[in-house]
């Protein structure tokens, strides 16, 4: 019981991170209908920016504690957002209105570019950092086993919720959000009605990348290591989460992320760690077979 509760806490905090990345996938998919394959690598870039900022601030002795983490988060979001913008501008915008596979190949190319750019510029070795947030509160005790909610997990859950609240406000209440939703429904019509669709799409990428940077900073703080290849598997799982929740649906992405996080954690806890990815992917396949549009996805009506 205590063990299961601990896994639940671990699963939710991992799932929150997946959810944040999944939002980036699902937003881009909703608005321009493409799989942004480079999104996982944007996440990786975010982790590296956070790593560098952290080393600069903490090891440089400039500041530490919560203020440092907040500043690292802000730096990572700003620079990663720039990467998101650039990727869209360079690799996707010229292909808008082109046939469907062209942006996908371009995205895969961009993903290779980002990975190898980081490998060349930062080296191939994994970069460890010392844990910055230590300790936690004890929730319950069962014999030897202590259920703990660590401060790190509280930070993950708190930051994710804050980011999602801001994001939801952005999408539902601001003119930008309205423009984004309009583009999602009908890009041509939105354009006719005076919405700058190119700008809206760019901002979508910027927001997606910023959310990925939040996830990346939290991931780095939680697991304490960054390497140039980390974006692939996290990206695939976050995309799986987006599909599971119903691609194009924002609450679905978060829900899917939580589910993937929980499945992965419980599978590792009770069965085998090696096959945790197999479990996540099998669940994905099964969900899609029985619910082809995901959990919260809309059923497309196909007009002939």
């Amino acid at each position, binding site marked *: 019981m205590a063990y299961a509760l601990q896994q639940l806490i671990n699963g939710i905090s991992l799932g929150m991170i997946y959810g944040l990345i999944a939002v980036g996938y699902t937003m881009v998919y909703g608005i321009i209908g493409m799989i942004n394959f480079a999104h996982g690598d944007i996440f990786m870039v975010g982790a*590296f920016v956070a*790593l560098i900022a952290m080393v600069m601030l903490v090891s440089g002795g400039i500041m530490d504690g919560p203020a440092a983490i907040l500043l690292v988060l802000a730096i990572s979001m700003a620079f990663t957002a720039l990467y998101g913008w650039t990727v869209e501008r360079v690799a996707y915008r010229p292909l808008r209105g082109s046939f469907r596979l062209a942006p996908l190949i*371009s995205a895969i190319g961009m993903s290779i570019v980002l990975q190898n750019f980081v490998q060349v510029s930062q080296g191939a070795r994994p970069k*460890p950092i010392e844990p910055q947030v230590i300790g936690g509160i004890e929730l319950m005790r069962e014999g030897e086993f202590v259920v703990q909610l660590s401060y790190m997990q509280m930070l993950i859950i708190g930051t994710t919720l804050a980011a999602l609240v801001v994001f939801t406000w952005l999408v539902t209440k601001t003119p930008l959000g309205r423009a984004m939703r309009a583009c999602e429904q009908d890009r041509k019509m939105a354009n006719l009605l005076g919405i700058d669709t190119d700008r809206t799409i760019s901002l979508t990428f910027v927001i997606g990348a910023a959310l990925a940077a939040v996830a990346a900073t939290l991931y780095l703080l939680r697991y304490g290591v960054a390497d140039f290849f980390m974006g692939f598997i996290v990206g695939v799982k976050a995309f799986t989460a987006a599909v599971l929740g119903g691609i194009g649906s924002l609450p679905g992405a978060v829900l899917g992320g939580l589910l993937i996080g929980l499945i992965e954690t419980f599978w590792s806890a009770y069965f085998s760690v090696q096959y945790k990815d197999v479990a996540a992917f099998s669940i994905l396949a099964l969900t899609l077979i029985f619910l082809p549009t995901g959990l919260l996805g809309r059923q497309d009506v196909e007009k*002939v």
Partner: protein
Amino acid sequence: MSAFSQGGAGGRITAALRDATIAAAVAFGLFVVMVGLRTDVSPTGALVLRERWTEVAMLCALVFAGRLVVTLWGLRPQSLGQSPERAAAMARAGKLFAPLLLAAALVLPFVPGIGRYELDLGILVLTYVMLGWGLNIVVGLAGLLDLGYVAFYAVGAYSYALLAQYFGLSFWICLPLAGILAAFWGILLGFPVLRLRGDYLAIVTLAFGEIIRIVLLNWVSLTGGPNGMSGIPRPTFFGLPFNMSGEPGTFAGFFGIEPDPVHRVVFLYYLILGLALLTNWVTIRIRRQPIGRAWEALREDEIACRALGINVRNTKLTAFALGAMFGGFAGAFFATRQGFISPESFTFIESAIILAIVVLGGMGSQVGVAVAAIVMIGGFELFRDLEEWRMLVFGAAMVVIMVLRPRGLVGSRTPTIALGEKRAIGAGHVSEGRG
């Protein structure tokens, strides 16, 4: 925009300069952290930062210059609606080009100056040509987006390695078996997922590819896990092994020629050429049959196919199985050529490269796939000296080719069937399918 309204070359240059300055500013933002500050692991285990501001300045200057050149000399994407005249001209050139390419491939081992290295490269390129043609059946003809094609390649390779190791079967028996097993896996995967549409199918196939790789990696007792399988038997020339002893039972001894290690390489070269041509021949023949026409119809419009009474499920399954089978053949060949396989050879990046070859080749164009494989894999080898930079160049090339030629290198093809006279059409008229 305002610069253009002022007119004249001066205005254009000012605008280009402003544009390039913005690009350089963005580049500065991109590189200042990621390049300017390099993290190194110090001997104590802590991270230390190394500053590299000169590199950042150089990169920004490079971006500035590059952007200026692009704006002033206008490298613009090729328009999608290629004119039929141009497409027809391309098709005529293609008619001449394909036999030439084939002839060159056939005589390559006998061209003076072609050594072992060139032949090995030729084998590598031909392996990708074959994989490209195999995937072309699934993506180019049937319009099903498959991101996990490497799984079938892995199934083929491991089928041969396992059958040879545990049952001692020879390459020539294992080759068809590997194909059949891969096709079987194709059906097994295809059956549940074929109801899915476009991108959902893509992600499930990707997941499937990863599952196969993870299982190969972790099933240590059967596959050796990350250490892979070594000692895979080399192919024989219909029972005559290639070795240096020159005894009557060997290839060299039987034909009474001097034993030479190149014999095996030449044999492998012709083997993969034969397999690739088989793939091509089967594809071309099947395109003329009802099933091939059904594939292409399915790519164009699935709903119309249903309305016309085409069994969509079986049509998709045959495409999946056939594509997987050729992937399996290529995998068995890969295993026998390398003599060693490990899950590392079957990562997602391989699937991505094969898909890139198909798309860059122009979706469904057989010659295009061959050209794209030569350009991508050959080009990749050309940049061998760049070491870790070459993957960067490879990725950038994928983006640039797509931006400049979204329809691929060979952007036209002849319809498989037509009323009256056949005329080449621009690739813009061919839908890519929503599978």
